[in-house]
């Protein structure tokens, strides 16, 4: 990047960025849409939508088979997207990037093809108290099947992981650690590299759930040194139905397939089937080719904005939003760790989160209400649910102001 480019990039023009997202221009319930539900799914820039349309308009064919031109172009697009994503997370090799449907599928792949092979009676799998259900249930299934124990690292009242407790929990019985990089319910950014190195000291591999991390911060597989990293395309401004599992190649090589079918084999006879090489061994059946290509376009879009600008803008919004919400009497922020991504989870003294959500929706403000698929977090804070505003780089201070105004309306109704 030249100096001139950097100067131009330094001026983050949020209005110009918003112009790239057609959905943000619409009215909802008679008000301009204020989209603050990015933790659930993000909106898509025109370039991602165009990539899908272009693929189906000009390139559609199956990948990795057929000698015809379109098949080759589809394969180039699909594999090109893989390379983009490898660079995006600084993985060492394209073979370590497996296309999945979403984070959940990536975690289940590791549960099936790694944990089931390595976890036995009396062994431990460690998760934290702030996991999404998708990073709890697959491990419960494995533990039940194998007679292993699911150990849960507790968190403090701000939503920070208790690292001392984690340290105490690690032992030679620890066969896997699976922990979120950023909490979806609380916003806490976990000290992932430290979590990984501590587990490695006991020979335990680590899976990081990166679903809420990749949209907000650069993630670097070499720096983190994690063994597996799972995320979803749709939270990263890409389409639904496409996700990524990164795995270290030596581990992936040794793992049996997750699903059987076409594309994941080298040869099949009724006597013996020889599995394909990485990453295809884990990509049975025709993949979501358009989704992969569009996710590549999303990664291009994010790279073009640059995480320097994205994180600076989001941190400023988070600061502004935290200040605004904490100054409203009767509003309590849930998740106040010093190191947080753009999530503002809150409760109100007199109004249940679902009622808050309905009243905000009436003003065109989209937030998530409920337990956020993280019931153990709700139990930890002894609340049934929260209202959650979650930010993306296209949000503005005006969006936060609208949220505050919406909360004022909640107070009018519920006093």
């Amino acid at each position, binding site marked *: 990047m030249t100096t001139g480019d950097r100067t131009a990039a330094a001026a983050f023009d949020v209005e110009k960025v918003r112009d790239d997202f057609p959905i943000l221009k619409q009215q909802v319930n008679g008000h301009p849409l204020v989209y603050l539900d990015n933790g659930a799914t993000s909106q898509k820039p025109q370039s991602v939508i165009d990539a899908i349309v272009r693929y189906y308009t000009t390139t559609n064919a199956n990948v990795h088979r057929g000698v015809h031109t379109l098949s080759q172009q589809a394969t180039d697009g699909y594999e090109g997207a893989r390379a983009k994503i490898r660079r995006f997370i600084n993985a060492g090799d394209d073979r370590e990037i497996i296309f999945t449907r979403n984070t959940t599928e990536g975690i289940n792949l590791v549960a099936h093809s790694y944990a089931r092979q390595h976890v036995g009676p009396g062994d431990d799998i460690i998760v934290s108290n702030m996991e999404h259900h998708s990073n709890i249930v697959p491990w419960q299934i494995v533990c039940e099947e194998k007679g292993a124990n699911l150990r849960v690292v507790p968190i403090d009242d701000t939503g920070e992981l208790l690292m001392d407790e984690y340290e105490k929990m690690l032992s030679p019985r620890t066969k896997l650690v699976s922990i979120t990089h950023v909490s979806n319910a609380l916003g806490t950014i976990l000290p992932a590299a430290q979590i990984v190195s501590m587990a490695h000291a006991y020979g335990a591999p680590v899976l990081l759930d990166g679903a809420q991390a990749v949209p907000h911060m650069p993630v670097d597989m070499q720096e983190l040194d994690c063994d597996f990293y799972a995320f979803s395309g749709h939270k990263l401004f890409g389409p639904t139905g496409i996700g990524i599992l990164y795995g270290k190649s030596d581990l992936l090589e040794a793992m049996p397939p997750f699903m059987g079918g076409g594309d994941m084999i080298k040869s099949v006879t009724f006597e013996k089937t020889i599995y394909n090489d990485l990453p295809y061994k884990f990509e049975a059946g025709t993949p979501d080719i358009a989704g992969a290509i569009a996710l590549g376009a999303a990664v291009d879009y994010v790279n073009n904005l640059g995480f320097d600008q994205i994180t600076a803008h989001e941190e400023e919004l988070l600061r502004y939003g935290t200040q605004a919400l904490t100054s409203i009497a009767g509003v309590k922020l849930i998740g106040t760790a010093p190191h947080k991504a753009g999530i503002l989870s809150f409760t109100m003294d007199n109004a*249940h989160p679902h009622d808050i959500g309905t009243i905000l929706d009436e003003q065109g403000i989209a937030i998530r209400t409920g*337990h956020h698929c993280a019931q153990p977090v709700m139990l930890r804070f002894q609340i049934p649910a929260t209202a959650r505003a979650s930010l993306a780089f296209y949000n503005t201070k005006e969006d936060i102001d609208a949220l505050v105004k919406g909360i004022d309306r909640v107070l009018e109704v519920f006093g």
Partner: protein
Amino acid sequence: MPGLNDLYQEILLEHNSKPRNFREVEEANKTSEGYNPLCGDQVTIYLKVIDGLIDDVGFQGSGCAISRASASMMTQSIKGQSVEKAQEIFDAFHDMITEPGAELDYDTLGDLETLSGVNAYPTRIKCAVLAWHTMKAALTGDADAITTE
């Protein structure tokens, strides 16, 4: 389109802040637990039924204003009624909430009519009907926990 004021009517808000029969019925002979897995709302209904009459009814649990007010108003409407009448009220309420535009049975519904605004909010219908399905399950002795998903 009906607005927020139709949804959050004064009577609903009043039942939310001061729910009636919000207690365990110690002599209950029929109880059931209802649960909305998506949002975590939970309600337990206690019924004391003697000779086909609902002698006492109470509820406990946690949920939004709509689910709480609906549960509270339900207990008022069925207390002292026959099991058959409770079933009639259930049907009238269920139709009102789930079938927008349906003719309302005002005689049977009474105050419950104030909850009719919920039918304009499809995402909130589950909240309004949770306690009702749970009550029906208690009456019919359906042992499984009720969910409105």
